[in-house]
C-alpha cells in the first residue's frame, strides 16, 4: 500500500458500564467517548476548528442499530452535540452489523489515502442495555437474513454460531469432547485476559475451563445448539475512538508532539470481503473447500498481500470472538494452523497470552465486551496499543505487528486490518 495511513491513538469507554442504569443516554456515551479519545490523542478543539477551516478533517461513525436500541439515527451529525468545534465537519454513519466499526475505519482510510482529508476521527458505538436481552436478540437478528434466519427465533445468533460449531465438528471429523474442550478453553483464555484489561466488561467475573465446560446446567444454560452462555459474548454498552491521519498530517502532528513520525503505527494492509448472507448458503458454497469460511480466509489473505506480511510476521491478533466457534474458525483463517487443527493451537497454549501467537490479549468480545458497532474500532485501538507498547498490564511483550479480524453477521462481512510500525 503506497499511501500510508497512521494511527495517532484513541480511547474506549469502560465496557462494564450500563448507561441506562446510570440514567444516561447514547448521547452521553458519545460525549464521553469523544472527549476522552481526543484528550488522550491530544487533538484539541482549536486544532479541529483549524483543520475544518482547511477542509482537512472528517468524522466516521460506526454503529449498527441506534434506531432500535436508542430510537435515534443520523449519528454522523452527532459530534456537533459534543463540541461546537465539530460544526461544519463532514461526518457520516457507517453500518455493516458487527463490522460497522471496521467499515467506518475503511471509509476513513480511503479518504486519507486519496488525500481528500488529512485527519479522520473514527468513533464506534453501541448502546444495547436499553432493552431486555430477548428484545435485543431480536434486534441483532437483523444482522442475519431476518425473515429467513431470525424472525420468531429466540436468540438467533447463538443458534447460527452453534450451527457453525456443528459444521466445523462434522467437516473435520473432530473428536467432540476434545473440540468442545477447546471451545471452553477459548472462553477461559478470553476471560483470563480480560482480567488484565481495566476497561473490560468481565474483568471481575469468574470463569475457568471447568465452568466453561459444564454446559447445560442451571448456571451455564445452552443457548444455541452446542453453545452455552460461556461460549457467547455479552450484551455491552460501549464506544471507542481512534484518530487516523495520512502522512501530510501525521508528520505535522509528530512535530507538534515533539516526537518522530515513526512513533506512530501504520495500517499496513487491509481486506474486505462479503460472503453469502445466509448461513446455509455459506455452508453450501464452502463444501469441498479447505476452509468452512473461505471468504474470511480470503480477507486475511488480502490483508497479508497488501501488507507484504504473513502469519509469521504477526505478533498479536484481535479477533471477532462473538462466540467461541467464531474464534475457533479464525485460528486457521489467520494461518496459525491448518483448518481442522485449530484445537491443537489452543491445547498447546499457542494462542494464550504468553503463547507464540496470542489472540485477544484484551479479552476479545467474550471478555472485553461486544458493543456491536464499537467492536471494530476497539480492536483497532487495542492493536494500536499493542504495537506502541502502551497496553499496560495486557501488553504482549515485543509486539511489532498486529492483525484484527472483525466480522458482521454470521461471518458475512469480513474485515481485516494489519497494523504495525
Amino acid at each position: 500500500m503506497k499511501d500510508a495511513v497512521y494511527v495517532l491513538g484513541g480511547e474506549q469507554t469502560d465496557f462494564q458500564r450500563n448507561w441506562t442504569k446510570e440514567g444516561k443516554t447514547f448521547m452521553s456515551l458519545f460525549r464521553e467517548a469523544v472527549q476522552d479519545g481526543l484528550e488522550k490523542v491530544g487533538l484539541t478543539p482549536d486544532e479541529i476548528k483549524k483543520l475544518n477551516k482547511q477542509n482537512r478533517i472528517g468524522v466516521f461513525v460506526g454503529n449498527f442499530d441506534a434506531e432500535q436500541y436508542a430510537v435515534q439515527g443520523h449519528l454522523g451529525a452527532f459530534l456537533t452535540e459534543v463540541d461546537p468545534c465539530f460544526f461544519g465537519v463532514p461526518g457520516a454513519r457507517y453500518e455493516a452489523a458487527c463490522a460497522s466499526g471496521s467499515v467506518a475505519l475503511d471509509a476513513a482510510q480511503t479518504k486519507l489515502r486519496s488525500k481528500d482529508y488529512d485527519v479522520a476521527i473514527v468513533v464506534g458505538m453501541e448502546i444495547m442495555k436499553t432493552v431486555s436481552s430477548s428484545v435485543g436478540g431480536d434486534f441483532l437478528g437483523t444482522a442475519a437474513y431476518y425473515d429467513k434466519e431470525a424472525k420468531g427465533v429466540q436468540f438467533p445468533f447463538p443458534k447460527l454460531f452453534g450451527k457453525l460449531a456443528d459444521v466445523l465438528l462434522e467437516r473435520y471429523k473432530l473428536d467432540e469432547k476434545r473440540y468442545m474442550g477447546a471451545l471452553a478453553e477459548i472462553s477461559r483464555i478470553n476471560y483470563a485476559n480480560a482480567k488484565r484489561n481495566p476497561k473490560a466488561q468481565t474483568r471481575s467475573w469468574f470463569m475457568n475451563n471447568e465452568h466453561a465446560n459444564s454446559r447445560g446446567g442451571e448456571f451455564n444454560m445452552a443457548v444455541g445448539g452446542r453453545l452455552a452462555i460461556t461460549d457467547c459474548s455479552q450484551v455491552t454498552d460501549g464506544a471507542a475512538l481512534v484518530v487516523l491521519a495520512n502522512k501530510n498530517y501525521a508528520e505535522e502532528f509528530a512535530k507538534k508532539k515533539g516526537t518522530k513520525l515513526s512513533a506512530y503505527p501504520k495500517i499496513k494492509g487491509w481486506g474486505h470481503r462479503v460472503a453469502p448472507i445466509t448461513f446455509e448458503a455459506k455452508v453450501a458454497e464452502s463444501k469441498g473447500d479447505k476452509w468452512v469460511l473461505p471468504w474470511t480466509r480470503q480477507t486475511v489473505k488480502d490483508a497479508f498481500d497488501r501488507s507484504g506480511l504473513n502469519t509469521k510476521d504477526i505478533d498479536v491478533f484481535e479477533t471477532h470472538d462473538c462466540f467461541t466457534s467464531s474464534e475457533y474458525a479464525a485460528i486457521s483463517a489467520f494461518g496459525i494452523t491448518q483448518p481442522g487443527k485449530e484445537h491443537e493451537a489452543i491445547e498447546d497454549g499457542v494462542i494464550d497470552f504468553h503463547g507464540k501467537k496470542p489472540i485477544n490479549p484484551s479479552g476479545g468480545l467474550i471478555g472485553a465486551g461486544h458493543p456491536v458497532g464499537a467492536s471494530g474500532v476497539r480492536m483497532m485501538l487495542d492493536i494500536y496499543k499493542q504495537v506502541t507498547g502502551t497496553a499496560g498490564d495486557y501488553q504482549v511483550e515485543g509486539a511489532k505487528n498486529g492483525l484484527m479480524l472483525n466480522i458482521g453477521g454470521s461471518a458475512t462481512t469480513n474485515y481485516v486490518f494489519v497494523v504495525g510500525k
Partner: protein
Amino acid sequence: MREIKTVTVLGANGTMGAGSAAIVAAFGKAKVHMLARDVNKAKEGIEKAISSIKTDTIRPRLIPGSYDQDLEKAVSESDWVFELVAESYEVKEPINKRIAKARKPGTIVSTVSSGLSIARLADAFDEDGKKHYYGTHFFNPPYKMILCELVTHAGNDKKVTKKLGEYLDKTLGRAVVYTNDTPAFAGNRIGFQLINEAAIKAEEYSDKGGIALIDAIMSGYTGRAMAPLDTADFVGLDVHKAIVDNLYEMTKDAAHSTFKLPGYFQKLIDRGDLGRKSGQGLYKMTKTPDGKKEKLYYDIKGDLFVPVPKFDIPFIKEANRRIGEADYIGAMNIVKEAKGLEADIARYFIARYVSYSLSLVGEVVDSKEMTDLAMGTGFNWAPASAFVDFLGGPKETISLITKAKLPVPEVLAKAKAGKPFYQLKDILDARSLFKG
C-alpha cells in the same frame, strides 16, 4: 507466605461468609472448610456460596463442618483461616484462642471485623501468629462488591503483607485498600459518618420531609446509586448502631459529634424495626388499595409511616439532567449556585464528604487513592477526589468546604491547580457512579 491451597471459613452460613468462601473456592481454587455452629447450617452456607457466584463447579471444594467437631482439624490443615463470626470481642476472642492452638506456623489468620481492633484480636496468638494476623474486610455481597480492606497492625511483617495483598488482588480479584488498624478502617468510617450525619439532619428537618427529604437531596446526582438513609435501612439499623457507637467511642476527630446515634434510631431498634431485613425501619414498602406498590418513610415527629412525597426541587432536576447528558462539571455548577435550604444541605454534605474522606489520609490510609478506591468499590459512591475535579478543582472545593465551616484537609490544601486531582481514572471510572 505459603501458597493458599486450603482455607477455613468460620461463619460460613452467613451471606458474607458464604459469599467469601465462594470467592476463595472459585478464584483461588482452594479447598474450603466451611464451618458453622452445626453442620446443617454449614451445608446451607454451601448452597448460598454456589448461588452467589453461580457455578456448581466449586461444590466439590466446599466441605461442611461445625465449630465443635471440626475446627481444630480444619485449622491445622489450612493455609488461611478466615474468621467471620459475630462482631464482638466476646465471640471472636475465645474462637481465636482455639485457632491459635490449632494453627501451624505460617498460617494466615484474618478477621472480617468492620471495626474491632486488629491488634487486640491478634493478642490471642503467639509471635508467629501475630505476624500472620490481619483484618480482611470484605464488603457485601463479595462477588459484586470487590473491595477488601487489608488491615495491618504493628506486629505484621511487611513481606507477608505484600504477598497477601498480591494474592487478594491478583488471585481473588479484590480491589485492595491498605489501611491502618483504626476504628472502622476507611470505608465504613467515611460511609457511616455521612450516613449518621444525614440521619441527624433528617431529625433537624423532620417537619420538612425528614428522612425522605435528606435522601432526595443526596440522590444519584451526588454520586451514589442508593441514598444514605436508604443504605442504613438496607444494612440494618442495628449494624449501623454498632459501627457508629464504636466510632463515637473510639475517635475524637473533627466529626466526632456526628457519630452520635440519633434517638429515633434507638427507638426503632428497641422495637425491632431494624430496616429491610425486619420489614420496616426508616422505610417500609406497602400496597395502596388499588394494589400498587408504595414506599413509606418514617416520620420522626409523628412516629408513623407516611408516603414518600415527590419533591419538586428545581436545582436537583437540572443537575440530574446535566448528569444524564454526561455534563458533570455543569451539574456541580448548578449545585454550587443554587439557592435555598435544599441546596445548602446538598453543598454541606458534598463538602463534608470530601473534607472527611481526604482528612483520613495519613491516619487511616497512606494516600487519597486508597480512600477513593474504598468508597468507589465498597460503597459505589463517587470518590471524593472525583468531586474535587467536577467542582472545578482544589481552589473551588476549598471554598465550598470553608463556606460549610468544615476543616480543609492537608492533601487538598497542598494540591496543585490545573492537574486532575482524581488519579484512578484507569481503574475506576468515577463518572459511572453519578446517576442522572
